[in-house]
């Protein structure tokens, strides 16, 4: 309990319990003279040229993640994880710039909640890879499981193979690139961000999407509720070309064949619609 008291004391000393909020503006303003750097104030200062390895044999997920943290604390900017053995919840919660190479496959929830690192995975990944990812890049050389990039908020999430169902469910930003096919209900309840599928898409693509864009290079089994075709603009083509080229996924025939799916926005403010209006949408 001593720790709790210390924390409580710290927050009181900082005035967080005596702040008078009524009668004053709640707006937060930018300070143009702010001298912020490129990383969070409490992140580790790492050097990409400093490299280390972690052998995951006989280590559990917690030990591996603590090993990663220790490596960053010691300034290692490039970390190679060997023998990950498809263990779950590896490389989660990294809020730092880091070059992370995973030689093998990951289990469930790999690389979740990360903000900044560049990750390359030579094998496959299980369910919910990169869930809630905030920033950075993840490149998976083989296939991925279901709910790939669930609730993604930012960054580039790339799978060079095929992915399971509900890819990008509830995504709120960022980019998902799939070199192969994606399963049913991809982009379900998507709120913003971009998804690019070079192969085919399964049933109910973009079901109940609120906003965002889905590009599909192959066939679409069918569209979900309120997902509608959109017009591909020159800016879209330029962005697609640049992004796919970045990850060696640009098809030989270019991007002109890609279809664009957007939200019809008929479901916005759904609770306030009249019953007859709801029927029209559903």
């Amino acid at each position, binding site marked *: 309990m001593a720790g709790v008291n210390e*924390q409580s004391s710290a927050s009181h000393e900082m005035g*967080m319990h005596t702040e008078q909020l009524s009668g004053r503006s709640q707006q*937060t303003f930018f300070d143009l003279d702010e001298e912020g750097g*490129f990383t969070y*104030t409490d992140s580790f200062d790492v050097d990409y040229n400093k490299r280390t390895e972690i052998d995951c044999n006989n280590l559990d997920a917690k030990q591996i993640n603590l090993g990663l943290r220790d490596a960053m604390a010691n300034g290692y900017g490039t970390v190679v994880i060997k023998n990950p053995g498809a263990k779950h919840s590896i490389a989660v919660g990294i809020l730092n710039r880091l070059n992370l190479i995973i030689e093998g496959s990951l289990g469930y929830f790999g690389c979740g909640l990360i903000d900044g690192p560049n990750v390359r995975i030579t094998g496959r990944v299980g369910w919910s890879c990169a869930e809630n990812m905030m920033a*950075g890049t993840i490149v998976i050389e083989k296939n991925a499981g279901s709910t790939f990039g669930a609730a993604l908020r930012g960054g580039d999430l790339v799978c060079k193979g095929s992915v399971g169902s509900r890819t990008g469910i509830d995504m709120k930003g960022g980019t998902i690139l799939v070199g192969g096919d994606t399963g049913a209900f991809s982009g379900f309840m998507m709120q*913003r961000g971009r998804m690019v599928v070079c192969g085919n898409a399964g049933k109910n693509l973009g079901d109940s999407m609120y906003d965002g864009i889905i590009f599909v290079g192959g066939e679409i089994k069918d569209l979900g509720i309120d997902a509608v075709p959109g017009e591909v603009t020159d800016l879209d083509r330029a962005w697609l070309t640049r992004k796919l080229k970045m990850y060696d996924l640009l098809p030989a025939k270019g991007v002109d064949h890609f279809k664009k799916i957007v939200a019809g926005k008929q479901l916005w403010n759904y609770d306030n619609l009249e019953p007859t209006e709801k029927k029209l949408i559903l």
Partner: protein
Amino acid sequence: MAGTSYKGSQITDVDQFIKGGGIESDREKEIGQHIGYRYDVNLLPDYERLTPFLKAYMEHMGWDDLNWLEDTHMGYEEGRPAVFDRNINGWVTIPEDMALPDNQQDRDMIARELLIKFQMSPNHPLAQLNKAYRKF
């Protein structure tokens, strides 16, 4: 329709939500707040307009493009230009005396630069909360 009629693609003037104050449709007037985004969330960045600060940031992070900042735009809250900070789940307002360019792409680049400086500052609300409450 009782729902929103506003769509990002209907923005015709870069100052639309500064001039209009933000509450426009009958439904918005009824509930006293705007519905939907105040900017086109799907607008892709024009990389010809990158600022030197953003180029340096991309290089520092080891990224070939703006990465998560592709989703950052200058929006408008209560009739004032502002940027949404996902880390505090709130809008951060641009100072009134700051001159804004006349196009959305340049405004978005400014928004990205300001947001990074704000988030990485020791004065950011999360840095303060972290200092006061972190457990380990």
